[in-house]
């Protein structure tokens, strides 16, 4: 039972990543709409920022796996 609660708590880190990447994508699309000629630079900044923000969610996922599978 404590394994289930632990893994569920670990996976909740995905919420932060989801919200922040959603907001970042919104700002990026606004910026592209304002200045379409900078689109490729905005896109590469967006991808880099999303990959970095995703990392915290991945840490939670790995901890969840460790909790479930390591006795």
């Amino acid at each position, binding site marked *: 039972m404590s394994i289930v609660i632990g893994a569920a708590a670990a996976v909740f880190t995905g919420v932060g990543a989801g919200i922040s990447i959603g907001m970042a994508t919104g700002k990026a699309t606004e910026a592209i709409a304002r200045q379409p000629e900078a689109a490729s630079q905005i896109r590469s900044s967006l*991808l*880099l920022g999303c*990959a970095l923000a*995703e*990392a915290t969610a*991945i*840490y939670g*996922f*790995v901890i969840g*796996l460790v909790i479930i599978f390591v006795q």
Partner: protein
Amino acid sequence: MSNVQEAMNSSIQNKTAFTIPLLGGIPVAESVLVTWILMAIIMAAVWLLARKLKPDHPGRGQSLLEMGVGFINSFTKDNIGPHWRSFAPWLGTVAVYITIANLSGAVGFTPPTKDISVTAALALTSVFLIYGGMFRFRGLRGGFHKFAEPVPLLAPINVMEIAIRPVSLCMRLFGNVLGSFVVMELLRAVLPVVVPVVFSLYFDVFDGIIQTIVFVFLTALFTGDALQDE
């Protein structure tokens, strides 16, 4: 449903491929074996592509290679600054290895970066690059002085970053590749016909390339940060 559970369990473990029968049996992990195969493929490709290089009328392959090398050189020069020549070949090699290792999941190998030992080793090489470069290009005193820049109050954080940066590099690459691999294994256990091909385009190809870019970019960024004076 035991199919799914079995796929889940087997995809997380690191299997031993074979055991060398010397010195009481040295187990050779699957990731090491796949890395050997990838190394053979990369070296064969390098030998084939670099065989007839001519300075006057470059063919198509040579032009592509020159574009790739020029891209890595300019990227390194932007991020590291004046000492970029020492770092560009290493960053290019790491980029090639991690890309091919991540993409090997799409063709049927188990990606060697799924093993945390491999990503930890890559992160350790990045640490040696960053702090070795810092002490080599600034001298011993200058290297220690760099920990107290920009404000001496940040010195404990700069020292802690020696440990934090490689952990984050390692876990990011490991977690992404392991997550992609587990999802692909589960998909293959449940819907083995056409669906894995479509999802493999995102999970194996796109995610693998993005993780390479992030790893190399962060290493170059940290190295440039350690070398530059501002």
